[in-house]
């Protein structure tokens, strides 16, 4: 039997919108890494007393653009991550939508908390 092996193109994820979304979702991890780098720069700037320089640098056009893109990817990450959660975490007697809502609530509360701590003066 000489079966024909179907070919998979290198950029198979361009074949279908849902695959592309998947690859973008996976690429969000790069921006997570970028954020860690950015955060560490921020922290060391605060430690060195060069926070003002850091602020000036972070106002550069390209840094801003990068951060806008990063934020978009992180939102994609967060939304897809929460959507997945109820499927991996099946809590007995709790319907999946409750798990989903709980994640969003946690997100809102934590975000508010972080903002409060940072902006507290």
């Amino acid at each position, binding site marked *: 039997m000489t079966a024909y092996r179907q070919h998979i193109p290198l950029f198979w994820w361009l074949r279908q919108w849902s695959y592309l979304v998947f690859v973008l979702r996976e690429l969000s991890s790069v921006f997570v890494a970028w954020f860690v780098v950015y*955060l560490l720069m921020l922290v060391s700037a605060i430690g060195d007393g060069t926070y003002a320089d850091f*602020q000036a640098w972070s106002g550069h056009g390209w840094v801003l653009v990068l951060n806008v893109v990063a934020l978009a990817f992180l939102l994609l990450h967060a939304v897809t991550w929460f959507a997945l959660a109820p499927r991996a975490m099946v809590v007995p007697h709790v319907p999946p939508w409750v798990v989903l809502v709980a994640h969003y609530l946690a997100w809102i509360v934590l975000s508010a908390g972080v903002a409060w701590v940072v902006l507290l003066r």
Partner: protein
Amino acid sequence: MKRSPEPLVWLAFSGGGMAAALLVPVLLFLFGLAFPLGWIEPPSEEHLVALVRHPITKLVLFGLCALGLFHFAHRFRYTLYDGLKLKRFAVLIAAVCYGAAVVGSVASAIVLLSV
């Protein structure tokens, strides 16, 4: 019994994914956009210094950095395998990705301890 080391890295990946989803958007929004663009008045430097010197902040930030890096390493590894059909370099890719995460975690510990 041959068991894969995958559960460990997966747990780190998941923890990082959750931490990143919950915390990064707001931090990135504040420090990456809102403060530089002046949408929101940035906090004073003294406040920030006090904040990052607080042990709980250090712990949280270290967790976020280390888990976030492992999240990145794990996902990016598979993105290279599948997205670019590079599975044949699996060992190398895994070494580089997780290696980067380990180095990055050590670096973040040093940075955080030194403030």
